[in-house]
Protein backbone atom coordinates (compact mmCIF):
# COMPACT_ATOMS: atom_id res chain seq x y z
CA UNK A 1 0.00 0.00 0.00
CA UNK A 2 1.32 3.41 -0.88
CA UNK A 3 1.69 5.73 2.06
CA UNK A 4 0.18 9.14 1.42
CA UNK A 5 1.86 10.87 4.34
CA UNK A 6 5.59 10.87 5.03
CA UNK A 7 6.93 8.82 7.93
CA UNK A 8 6.73 11.92 10.06
CA UNK A 9 3.35 13.50 9.43
CA UNK A 10 3.43 16.73 7.47
CA UNK A 11 1.13 19.61 8.27
CA UNK A 12 -1.05 21.07 5.52
CA UNK A 13 0.95 22.82 2.85
CA UNK A 14 -0.05 26.13 1.41
CA UNK A 15 0.88 26.99 -2.14
CA UNK A 16 2.30 30.35 -1.29
CA UNK A 17 4.31 29.03 1.60
CA UNK A 18 2.64 31.41 4.01
CA UNK A 19 -0.61 31.41 5.86
CA UNK A 20 -1.62 35.01 5.77
CA UNK A 21 -4.20 34.98 8.56
CA UNK A 22 -1.92 33.72 11.34
CA UNK A 23 1.24 35.37 9.88
CA UNK A 24 3.13 32.11 10.08
CA UNK A 25 4.90 30.08 7.45
CA UNK A 26 6.25 26.57 7.12
CA UNK A 27 9.80 25.96 8.24
CA UNK A 28 9.97 22.27 7.46
CA UNK A 29 7.01 20.84 9.34
CA UNK A 30 7.17 23.58 11.93
CA UNK A 31 5.07 26.74 11.68
CA UNK A 32 7.16 29.82 12.44
CA UNK A 33 6.38 33.56 12.28
CA UNK A 34 6.92 34.87 8.75
CA UNK A 35 9.66 37.27 9.80
CA UNK A 36 11.63 34.45 11.46
CA UNK A 37 11.88 32.04 8.53
CA UNK A 38 14.63 33.83 6.65
CA UNK A 39 16.85 33.85 9.75
CA UNK A 40 16.12 30.19 10.49
CA UNK A 41 16.95 29.18 6.91
CA UNK A 42 20.14 31.22 7.12
CA UNK A 43 21.14 29.31 10.29
CA UNK A 44 20.61 25.99 8.49
CA UNK A 45 22.77 26.98 5.56
CA UNK A 46 25.43 28.60 7.74
CA UNK A 47 25.69 25.20 9.40
CA UNK A 48 25.82 23.07 6.24
CA UNK A 49 27.90 25.42 4.04
CA UNK A 50 31.34 23.84 4.70
CA UNK A 51 30.17 20.32 3.81
CA UNK A 52 27.43 21.29 1.34
CA UNK A 53 28.97 19.78 -1.80
CA UNK A 54 30.02 16.57 -0.07
CA UNK A 55 26.53 16.15 1.32
CA UNK A 56 24.93 16.87 -2.05
CA UNK A 57 26.98 14.08 -3.58
CA UNK A 58 26.18 11.70 -0.74
CA UNK A 59 22.48 12.52 -0.61
CA UNK A 60 21.83 12.32 -4.33
CA UNK A 61 24.49 9.69 -5.11
CA UNK A 62 26.03 12.18 -7.50
CA UNK A 63 22.81 12.65 -9.46
CA UNK A 64 22.61 16.35 -8.58
CA UNK A 65 25.41 16.95 -11.10
CA UNK A 66 23.31 15.47 -13.92
CA UNK A 67 20.21 17.37 -12.77
CA UNK A 68 22.16 20.63 -12.81
CA UNK A 69 23.58 19.94 -16.27
CA UNK A 70 20.08 19.13 -17.49
CA UNK A 71 18.72 22.41 -16.10
CA UNK A 72 21.54 24.52 -17.54
CA UNK A 73 21.11 22.71 -20.88
CA UNK A 74 17.47 23.81 -20.91
CA UNK A 75 18.48 27.42 -20.26
CA UNK A 76 19.58 27.67 -23.88
CA UNK A 77 21.87 30.64 -23.26
CA UNK A 78 24.83 31.62 -25.39
CA UNK A 79 27.71 34.03 -25.66
CA UNK A 80 26.66 37.51 -24.58
CA UNK A 81 23.60 36.58 -22.52
CA UNK A 82 22.91 37.96 -19.04
CA UNK A 83 21.98 35.31 -16.49
CA UNK A 84 20.85 35.56 -12.87
CA UNK A 85 21.57 32.51 -10.71
CA UNK A 86 19.50 32.81 -7.54
CA UNK A 87 20.17 30.76 -4.39
CA UNK A 88 23.40 29.94 -6.15
CA UNK A 89 24.88 28.19 -3.10
CA UNK A 90 28.32 26.92 -3.90
CA UNK A 91 28.05 28.04 -7.51
CA UNK A 92 27.58 24.78 -9.45
CA UNK A 93 25.05 26.31 -11.83
CA UNK A 94 27.01 29.57 -12.11
CA UNK A 95 30.09 27.63 -13.20
CA UNK A 96 28.18 25.75 -15.93
CA UNK A 97 26.38 28.86 -17.13
CA UNK A 98 29.49 31.08 -17.10
CA UNK A 99 31.02 28.78 -19.70
CA UNK A 100 27.95 29.06 -21.93
CA UNK A 101 27.73 32.86 -21.87
CA UNK A 102 31.47 33.54 -22.07
CA UNK A 103 33.24 35.66 -23.13
CA UNK A 104 30.77 38.50 -23.65
CA UNK A 105 28.04 37.46 -21.21
CA UNK A 106 27.66 37.72 -17.46
CA UNK A 107 26.29 35.55 -14.67
CA UNK A 108 25.13 37.19 -11.46
CA UNK A 109 25.67 34.66 -8.68
CA UNK A 110 23.27 35.48 -5.90
CA UNK A 111 22.38 34.01 -2.52
CA UNK A 112 20.79 35.29 0.66
CA UNK A 113 23.39 33.45 2.70
CA UNK A 114 26.82 35.04 2.98
CA UNK A 115 28.55 31.81 4.07
CA UNK A 116 27.27 29.92 1.04
CA UNK A 117 28.18 32.75 -1.30
CA UNK A 118 31.66 32.84 0.18
CA UNK A 119 32.05 29.09 -0.39
CA UNK A 120 30.84 29.49 -3.96
CA UNK A 121 33.16 32.41 -4.66
CA UNK A 122 36.16 30.50 -3.27
CA UNK A 123 35.36 27.43 -5.35
CA UNK A 124 35.07 29.49 -8.53
CA UNK A 125 38.38 31.19 -7.76
CA UNK A 126 40.00 27.80 -7.12
CA UNK A 127 38.85 26.71 -10.56
CA UNK A 128 40.16 29.89 -12.13
CA UNK A 129 36.70 31.14 -13.08
CA UNK A 130 36.53 34.87 -12.50
CA UNK A 131 35.54 36.56 -15.75
CA UNK A 132 31.92 37.44 -16.37
CA UNK A 133 30.72 36.65 -12.84
CA UNK A 134 29.28 39.12 -10.33
CA UNK A 135 28.31 38.29 -6.76
CA UNK A 136 25.20 39.56 -5.05
CA UNK A 137 23.90 38.80 -1.57
CA UNK A 138 20.16 39.34 -1.65
CA UNK A 139 16.77 37.94 -0.78
CA UNK A 140 15.03 36.50 -3.86
CA UNK A 141 11.79 38.19 -2.80
CA UNK A 142 13.31 41.66 -3.13
CA UNK A 143 15.78 41.77 -6.00
CA UNK A 144 17.79 45.00 -6.17
CA UNK A 145 17.99 44.72 -9.93
CA UNK A 146 16.51 46.65 -12.84
CA UNK A 147 13.40 45.51 -14.72
CA UNK A 148 13.94 43.59 -17.98
CA UNK A 149 17.65 43.05 -17.44
CA UNK A 150 18.26 39.27 -17.74
CA UNK A 151 17.92 36.78 -20.59
CA UNK A 152 17.58 33.94 -18.13
CA UNK A 153 16.92 33.55 -14.42
CA UNK A 154 17.58 30.22 -12.74
CA UNK A 155 17.08 29.07 -9.17
CA UNK A 156 18.42 25.64 -8.25
CA UNK A 157 17.27 23.89 -5.07
CA UNK A 158 16.52 27.24 -3.47
CA UNK A 159 12.88 28.16 -4.01
CA UNK A 160 11.62 25.86 -1.26
CA UNK A 161 13.58 27.89 1.29
CA UNK A 162 12.01 31.18 0.20
CA UNK A 163 9.34 32.50 2.56
CA UNK A 164 6.95 33.92 -0.07
CA UNK A 165 7.51 31.85 -3.19
CA UNK A 166 4.96 33.66 -5.34
CA UNK A 167 6.50 37.04 -4.52
CA UNK A 168 9.93 35.66 -5.44
CA UNK A 169 8.68 34.28 -8.77
CA UNK A 170 7.07 37.67 -9.52
CA UNK A 171 10.41 39.35 -8.83
CA UNK A 172 12.17 36.91 -11.16
CA UNK A 173 9.56 37.67 -13.82
CA UNK A 174 10.13 41.40 -13.32
CA UNK A 175 13.89 41.26 -13.93
CA UNK A 176 13.55 39.05 -17.03
CA UNK A 177 13.78 40.65 -20.44
CA UNK A 178 10.79 40.05 -22.73
CA UNK A 179 11.43 36.65 -24.31
CA UNK A 180 13.62 35.65 -21.36
CA UNK A 181 13.09 32.46 -19.44
CA UNK A 182 12.87 31.38 -15.83
CA UNK A 183 14.05 27.93 -14.77
CA UNK A 184 13.31 26.41 -11.40
CA UNK A 185 15.24 23.28 -10.47
CA UNK A 186 13.74 21.86 -7.30
CA UNK A 187 12.75 18.71 -5.47
CA UNK A 188 9.21 17.75 -6.27
CA UNK A 189 6.65 14.98 -5.88
CA UNK A 190 7.83 11.55 -7.03
CA UNK A 191 5.72 8.75 -8.48
CA UNK A 192 3.38 7.22 -5.88
CA UNK A 193 5.21 3.88 -6.06
CA UNK A 194 8.44 5.59 -4.96
CA UNK A 195 6.94 7.54 -2.08
CA UNK A 196 7.49 4.96 0.67
CA UNK A 197 11.18 4.21 0.00
CA UNK A 198 11.74 7.92 -0.63
CA UNK A 199 10.26 8.82 2.77
CA UNK A 200 12.28 6.11 4.44
CA UNK A 201 15.45 7.49 2.88
CA UNK A 202 14.61 11.13 3.63
CA UNK A 203 13.61 10.74 7.26
CA UNK A 204 15.68 7.81 8.46
CA UNK A 205 18.86 7.73 6.37
CA UNK A 206 19.39 11.37 5.41
CA UNK A 207 19.57 12.81 8.96
CA UNK A 208 22.04 10.05 9.90
CA UNK A 209 24.19 10.90 6.89
CA UNK A 210 24.02 14.54 8.00
CA UNK A 211 25.10 13.64 11.50
CA UNK A 212 27.88 11.36 10.31
CA UNK A 213 29.44 13.59 7.64
CA UNK A 214 28.38 17.12 8.60
CA UNK A 215 27.80 16.68 12.32
CA UNK A 216 24.32 18.16 11.96
CA UNK A 217 21.25 15.91 11.80
CA UNK A 218 18.69 18.68 12.39
CA UNK A 219 19.62 20.72 9.32
CA UNK A 220 19.29 17.68 7.10
CA UNK A 221 15.98 16.78 8.73
CA UNK A 222 14.84 20.30 7.85
CA UNK A 223 15.96 19.75 4.23
CA UNK A 224 13.80 16.61 4.01
CA UNK A 225 10.83 18.35 5.60
CA UNK A 226 11.14 21.44 3.42
CA UNK A 227 11.08 19.20 0.32
CA UNK A 228 7.77 17.68 1.48
CA UNK A 229 6.30 21.15 2.11
CA UNK A 230 7.30 22.43 -1.33
CA UNK A 231 4.50 22.71 -3.94
CA UNK A 232 4.19 19.77 -6.33
CA UNK A 233 4.77 20.05 -10.08
CA UNK A 234 1.30 21.23 -11.09
CA UNK A 235 1.00 23.71 -8.20
CA UNK A 236 4.34 25.29 -8.96
CA UNK A 237 3.44 25.53 -12.66
CA UNK A 238 0.20 27.29 -11.68
CA UNK A 239 2.19 29.69 -9.48
CA UNK A 240 4.48 30.53 -12.38
CA UNK A 241 1.48 31.27 -14.58
CA UNK A 242 -0.01 33.41 -11.81
CA UNK A 243 3.25 35.35 -11.65
CA UNK A 244 2.84 36.22 -15.35
CA UNK A 245 5.02 33.61 -17.05
CA UNK A 246 3.84 31.94 -20.26
CA UNK A 247 4.39 28.60 -21.97
CA UNK A 248 5.13 27.06 -18.58
CA UNK A 249 6.14 23.43 -18.59
CA UNK A 250 7.99 21.05 -16.32
CA UNK A 251 10.44 18.23 -16.94
CA UNK A 252 10.45 15.43 -14.38
CA UNK A 253 13.78 13.90 -13.42
CA UNK A 254 14.36 10.69 -11.44
CA UNK A 255 10.65 9.82 -11.59
CA UNK A 256 9.62 13.22 -10.26
CA UNK A 257 11.96 13.37 -7.24
CA UNK A 258 13.29 16.48 -8.97
CA UNK A 259 11.58 18.66 -11.56
CA UNK A 260 12.76 21.49 -13.79
CA UNK A 261 10.06 24.09 -14.43
CA UNK A 262 10.48 26.51 -17.31
CA UNK A 263 8.43 29.54 -18.23
CA UNK A 264 8.82 32.53 -20.54
CA UNK A 265 8.20 36.22 -20.13
CA UNK A 266 6.29 37.15 -23.25
Amino acid at each position, binding site marked *: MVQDQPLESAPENSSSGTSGQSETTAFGYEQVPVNEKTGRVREVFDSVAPSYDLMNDLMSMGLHRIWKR*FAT*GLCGVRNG*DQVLDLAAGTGDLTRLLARQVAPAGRVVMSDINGAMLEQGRDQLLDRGITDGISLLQTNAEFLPLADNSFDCVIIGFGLRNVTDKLAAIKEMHRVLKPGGKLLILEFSKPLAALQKPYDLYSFKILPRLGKLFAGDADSYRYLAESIRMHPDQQTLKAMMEEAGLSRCHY*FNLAAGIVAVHRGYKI
Partner: protein
Amino acid sequence: MPLPSTAIGIAEIILSRYLNAADIGPIADPLIGKRIRIELETIPGQPAISIDAMPDRNGIRLLPGEEPLDQADATIAGSPQALLMLLLNRSKTNNDQARVSGDLQLIRNLTDLFSDADFDLEAILAEWTGPRRARHLAEFVTVTGGWLKQSGDKLSRNLFDYLKYESDILVPPQQWQQLAEECQQLERRLGGLQRRLEKLEKLETPNS
Protein backbone atom coordinates in the same frame (compact mmCIF):
# COMPACT_ATOMS: atom_id res chain seq x y z
CA MET B 1 0.96 9.77 -28.02
CA PRO B 2 2.89 11.47 -25.18
CA LEU B 3 6.67 11.32 -24.93
CA PRO B 4 8.22 11.56 -21.44
CA SER B 5 9.18 15.14 -20.65
CA THR B 6 12.72 14.03 -19.74
CA ALA B 7 13.20 12.59 -23.24
CA ILE B 8 11.97 15.84 -24.79
CA GLY B 9 14.33 17.80 -22.55
CA ILE B 10 17.29 15.64 -23.54
CA ALA B 11 16.37 15.96 -27.23
CA GLU B 12 16.25 19.74 -26.85
CA ILE B 13 19.64 19.86 -25.13
CA ILE B 14 21.22 17.71 -27.88
CA LEU B 15 19.63 19.89 -30.56
CA SER B 16 20.85 23.08 -28.87
CA ARG B 17 24.36 21.65 -28.50
CA TYR B 18 24.36 20.74 -32.19
CA LEU B 19 23.26 24.21 -33.26
CA ASN B 20 25.66 25.94 -30.86
CA ALA B 21 28.57 23.75 -31.94
CA ALA B 22 27.68 24.49 -35.54
CA ASP B 23 28.08 28.15 -34.70
CA ILE B 24 25.00 29.23 -36.61
CA GLY B 25 24.74 32.55 -34.77
CA PRO B 26 21.44 33.94 -33.55
CA ILE B 27 18.37 32.35 -35.13
CA ALA B 28 16.85 34.44 -37.90
CA ASP B 29 13.84 36.58 -37.00
CA PRO B 30 11.32 34.84 -39.31
CA LEU B 31 11.66 31.68 -37.22
CA ILE B 32 11.48 33.23 -33.75
CA GLY B 33 8.19 32.79 -31.92
CA LYS B 34 6.81 30.34 -34.45
CA ARG B 35 5.37 26.98 -33.44
CA ILE B 36 6.17 23.99 -35.64
CA ARG B 37 4.28 20.78 -34.86
CA ILE B 38 6.30 17.59 -35.45
CA GLU B 39 4.33 14.35 -35.81
CA LEU B 40 6.83 11.56 -35.31
CA GLU B 41 5.56 8.25 -36.73
CA THR B 42 7.65 5.62 -34.99
CA ILE B 43 5.52 2.46 -35.10
CA PRO B 44 3.14 1.82 -38.03
CA GLY B 45 -0.48 1.78 -36.89
CA GLN B 46 0.29 3.57 -33.62
CA PRO B 47 -0.56 7.25 -33.00
CA ALA B 48 2.24 9.65 -33.87
CA ILE B 49 4.32 11.34 -31.15
CA SER B 50 3.51 15.06 -31.15
CA ILE B 51 6.20 17.58 -30.30
CA ASP B 52 6.07 21.36 -30.69
CA ALA B 53 9.33 23.00 -31.79
CA MET B 54 9.60 26.69 -30.97
CA PRO B 55 12.72 28.45 -32.24
CA ASP B 56 14.04 31.31 -30.15
CA ARG B 57 17.12 33.48 -30.58
CA ASN B 58 19.46 30.85 -29.09
CA GLY B 59 18.10 27.61 -30.46
CA ILE B 60 14.99 25.50 -30.58
CA ARG B 61 12.82 24.75 -27.57
CA LEU B 62 10.80 21.53 -27.58
CA LEU B 63 7.55 20.90 -25.75
CA PRO B 64 5.05 18.04 -25.86
CA GLY B 65 2.48 18.79 -28.59
CA GLU B 66 -0.40 19.39 -26.20
CA GLU B 67 -1.76 22.57 -27.77
CA PRO B 68 -4.45 22.25 -30.49
CA LEU B 69 -3.00 21.58 -33.95
CA ASP B 70 -4.38 24.85 -35.37
CA GLN B 71 -2.04 26.77 -33.04
CA ALA B 72 0.91 25.50 -35.08
CA ASP B 73 2.27 27.61 -37.95
CA ALA B 74 3.46 24.53 -39.83
CA THR B 75 3.42 20.77 -39.47
CA ILE B 76 5.97 18.13 -40.38
CA ALA B 77 4.98 14.46 -40.22
CA GLY B 78 6.88 11.29 -41.01
CA SER B 79 9.24 8.64 -39.72
CA PRO B 80 12.31 9.74 -37.72
CA GLN B 81 14.55 8.94 -40.71
CA ALA B 82 12.36 10.94 -43.08
CA LEU B 83 12.38 13.94 -40.73
CA LEU B 84 16.14 13.74 -40.36
CA MET B 85 16.57 13.65 -44.15
CA LEU B 86 14.22 16.61 -44.50
CA LEU B 87 16.11 18.65 -41.90
CA LEU B 88 19.45 17.87 -43.50
CA ASN B 89 18.05 18.57 -46.98
CA ARG B 90 19.04 15.14 -48.27
CA SER B 91 17.10 13.29 -50.94
CA LYS B 92 15.32 10.12 -49.95
CA THR B 93 13.25 7.47 -51.70
CA ASN B 94 9.71 8.52 -52.49
CA ASN B 95 8.10 5.98 -50.17
CA ASP B 96 9.70 7.48 -47.04
CA GLN B 97 9.32 11.22 -47.36
CA ALA B 98 8.24 13.63 -44.66
CA ARG B 99 4.91 15.36 -45.23
CA VAL B 100 4.78 19.09 -44.63
CA SER B 101 1.86 21.47 -44.38
CA GLY B 102 1.19 25.04 -43.29
CA ASP B 103 3.79 27.78 -43.77
CA LEU B 104 6.21 26.10 -46.19
CA GLN B 105 8.64 29.03 -46.14
CA LEU B 106 8.99 28.47 -42.40
CA ILE B 107 9.90 24.81 -42.99
CA ARG B 108 12.40 25.88 -45.65
CA ASN B 109 14.01 28.34 -43.22
CA LEU B 110 14.22 25.58 -40.61
CA THR B 111 15.80 23.05 -42.98
CA ASP B 112 18.26 25.71 -44.20
CA LEU B 113 19.25 26.28 -40.57
CA PHE B 114 20.25 22.64 -40.16
CA SER B 115 21.69 21.98 -43.59
CA ASP B 116 23.90 25.11 -43.44
CA ALA B 117 25.20 24.20 -39.98
CA ASP B 118 28.85 23.26 -39.94
CA PHE B 119 28.98 20.83 -37.05
CA ASP B 120 32.07 21.04 -34.84
CA LEU B 121 32.46 17.87 -32.78
CA GLU B 122 35.61 19.15 -31.07
CA ALA B 123 33.75 22.09 -29.54
CA ILE B 124 31.17 19.79 -27.95
CA LEU B 125 33.75 17.32 -26.66
CA ALA B 126 35.94 20.11 -25.26
CA GLU B 127 33.23 21.00 -22.76
CA TRP B 128 33.44 17.53 -21.24
CA THR B 129 37.01 16.43 -21.76
CA GLY B 130 39.03 19.64 -22.07
CA PRO B 131 40.48 20.98 -25.35
CA ARG B 132 43.47 18.63 -25.64
CA ARG B 133 41.59 15.35 -25.28
CA ALA B 134 38.75 16.76 -27.36
CA ARG B 135 41.16 17.37 -30.24
CA HIS B 136 42.46 13.79 -30.11
CA LEU B 137 38.98 12.32 -29.77
CA ALA B 138 37.58 14.45 -32.58
CA GLU B 139 40.52 13.45 -34.80
CA PHE B 140 39.95 9.80 -33.95
CA VAL B 141 36.23 10.03 -34.72
CA THR B 142 36.89 11.93 -37.95
CA VAL B 143 39.60 9.52 -39.13
CA THR B 144 37.58 6.44 -38.12
CA GLY B 145 34.46 7.89 -39.71
CA GLY B 146 36.38 8.61 -42.93
CA TRP B 147 37.90 5.12 -42.92
CA LEU B 148 34.49 3.51 -42.36
CA LYS B 149 32.97 5.57 -45.15
CA GLN B 150 35.84 4.67 -47.52
CA SER B 151 35.61 1.01 -46.57
CA GLY B 152 31.85 1.01 -47.02
CA ASP B 153 32.16 2.63 -50.46
CA LYS B 154 34.86 0.15 -51.47
CA LEU B 155 32.86 -2.81 -50.20
CA SER B 156 29.75 -1.73 -52.07
CA ARG B 157 31.80 -1.21 -55.26
CA ASN B 158 33.42 -4.65 -54.94
CA LEU B 159 30.09 -6.28 -54.24
CA PHE B 160 28.57 -4.59 -57.27
CA ASP B 161 31.48 -5.74 -59.51
CA TYR B 162 31.28 -9.28 -58.16
CA LEU B 163 27.54 -9.51 -58.71
CA LYS B 164 27.90 -8.04 -62.18
CA TYR B 165 30.59 -10.59 -63.11
CA GLU B 166 28.61 -13.46 -61.63
CA SER B 167 25.47 -12.37 -63.42
CA ASP B 168 27.40 -12.30 -66.73
CA ILE B 169 28.56 -15.91 -66.41
CA LEU B 170 25.25 -17.20 -65.08
CA VAL B 171 22.79 -18.94 -67.47
CA PRO B 172 20.29 -16.39 -68.77
CA PRO B 173 16.71 -16.72 -67.49
CA GLN B 174 15.35 -17.71 -70.95
CA GLN B 175 17.64 -20.74 -71.01
CA TRP B 176 16.57 -21.72 -67.51
CA GLN B 177 12.95 -21.51 -68.66
CA GLN B 178 13.63 -23.59 -71.77
CA LEU B 179 15.42 -26.21 -69.69
CA ALA B 180 12.49 -26.38 -67.29
CA GLU B 181 10.04 -26.83 -70.19
CA GLU B 182 12.19 -29.59 -71.70
CA CYS B 183 12.38 -31.35 -68.34
CA GLN B 184 8.58 -31.23 -68.07
CA GLN B 185 8.24 -32.61 -71.59
CA LEU B 186 10.71 -35.40 -70.77
CA GLU B 187 8.74 -36.21 -67.65
CA ARG B 188 5.51 -36.45 -69.65
CA ARG B 189 7.17 -38.76 -72.23
CA LEU B 190 8.59 -40.92 -69.45
CA GLY B 191 5.08 -41.23 -68.06
CA GLY B 192 3.76 -42.33 -71.46
CA LEU B 193 6.56 -44.89 -71.85
CA GLN B 194 5.87 -46.21 -68.37
CA ARG B 195 2.19 -46.74 -69.21
CA ARG B 196 3.08 -48.59 -72.45
CA LEU B 197 5.45 -50.91 -70.58
CA GLU B 198 2.69 -51.66 -68.07
CA LYS B 199 0.29 -52.55 -70.91
CA LEU B 200 2.88 -54.85 -72.47
CA GLU B 201 3.40 -56.60 -69.15
CA LYS B 202 -0.36 -57.18 -68.86
CA LEU B 203 -0.48 -58.64 -72.43
CA GLU B 204 2.38 -61.01 -71.66
CA THR B 205 0.94 -62.33 -68.36
CA PRO B 206 -2.18 -64.33 -69.72
CA ASN B 207 -0.02 -66.20 -72.33
CA SER B 208 2.43 -67.39 -69.78
